[in-house]
């Protein structure tokens, strides 16, 4: 058997990541290799927009979080990244396509959150309010208390999916242990 190696410990992304990880978005003189347009090379696909705000335990919008979206429905493997420090209201924005349902599961997008004040990143998921039927029968969603389950479901408003993330408090978003 292989000798198990110890994982390298995680540390916070800190407040000063922007010129390294999302430089183009923040206007630094270094090219980003990825941004928030996850569907830029997909032709003839219906795209969706996702936006939201990350709130701390006092419900203040967090202006130094980095949000990564990962999705893979077997057909399209997409990745996007955005920092919450360039919008006046500290919103994040993504353009992507809605993933397909796989094996009857409700479609979803993985979210990884990094921020000052998180020594270890957190994982959550975006489900979609207009997938009511699949959401109702989804095993992962059903395993979560009813009142908390809705924190994972992006509401469709004015053609956009809105997915606000609450780190703490009565509306605390469900985070996963992947």
């Amino acid at each position, binding site marked *: 058997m292989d000798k198990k190696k110890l994982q390298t410990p995680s540390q916070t992304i800190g407040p000063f990541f922007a010129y390294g990880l999302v430089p183009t978005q923040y206007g630094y003189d270094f090219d980003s290799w990825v941004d928030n347009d996850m569907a830029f090379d997909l032709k003839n696909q219906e795209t969706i927009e996702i936006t939201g705000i990350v709130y701390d335990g006092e419900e203040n919008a967090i202006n130094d979080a980095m949000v*990564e979206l990962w999705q893979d429905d077997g057909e399209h493997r997409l990745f996007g990244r955005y920092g919450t420090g360039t919008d006046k209201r500290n919103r994040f924005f993504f353009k992507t396509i809605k993933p397909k349902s796989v094996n009857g599961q409700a479609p979803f997008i993985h979210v990884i959150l990094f921020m000052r004040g998180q020594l270890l990143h957190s994982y959550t998921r975006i489900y979609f309010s207009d997938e009511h039927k699949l959401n109702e029968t989804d*095993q992962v969603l059903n395993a979560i208390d009813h009142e908390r389950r809705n924190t994972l479901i992006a509401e469709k408003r004015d053609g956009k999916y809105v997915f606000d993330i609450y*780190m*703490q408090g009565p509306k605390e978003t469900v985070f996963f242990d992947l």
Partner: protein
Amino acid sequence: MNESNKEGFDREIQPAYLYEGYKSTILRAPTKPLVVPKKSDIKLSGPVFKDFELGVLDHDLTKNAIKNGEPIGERIVVHGKVTNERGQPIPHTLLEIWQANAAGRYVHKVDQHDAPLDPNFLGTGRCMTDAEGNYKFYTIKPGAYPWGNHPNAWRPNHIHFSLFGGDITSRLITQMYFPHDPLFDQDPMFQSIPLKGRELLVSKFDYNLTEPDFALGYRFDIVLRGHNATPFENI
């Protein structure tokens, strides 16, 4: 440790979300228990590079932002190997790094520390591991800097690292430290790591990696969570 949590975060090594010594965790750490989802049928593979190629100087922070001269400070070369928990190398995976300059100042607009900026140093770079999981970059040794966490708080010298590995569970953002830093004892970020894990973030000075007349050598090996060694894909 049983089979089912073997691939999870090693709680004897990894910091907890809440560490009160690091004040910003207090309003940002999740407070409710994490949910363990049923395993999905779809593998959560890492991102794909699309229409992007690394620049030839992306891995060399001593040269990638030169305007009118050499950056100030002690040049270093950092070597390391990226593996999974089985020790298998992770080839062709992206590393992104960012750091303060030799005076302890970040280029980031929010950094208010009144140490000087260096017009010839941006402090960010990236590289891919080779077929054996090895990486190398050149940079300037970062300076320590003060911050507001507690009275007379100083961050030890460090370089921020971001890595992907084979899938979403191997994602890692961390910081590399330097040997025998006298600031470790008062640094809550370093202290947040359980004792068993701390030395894993301290690079080793390696005379054999030192490049004559150019740069001092350090080694920093990285172990990503899990057993996956799938490389980054390039489309």
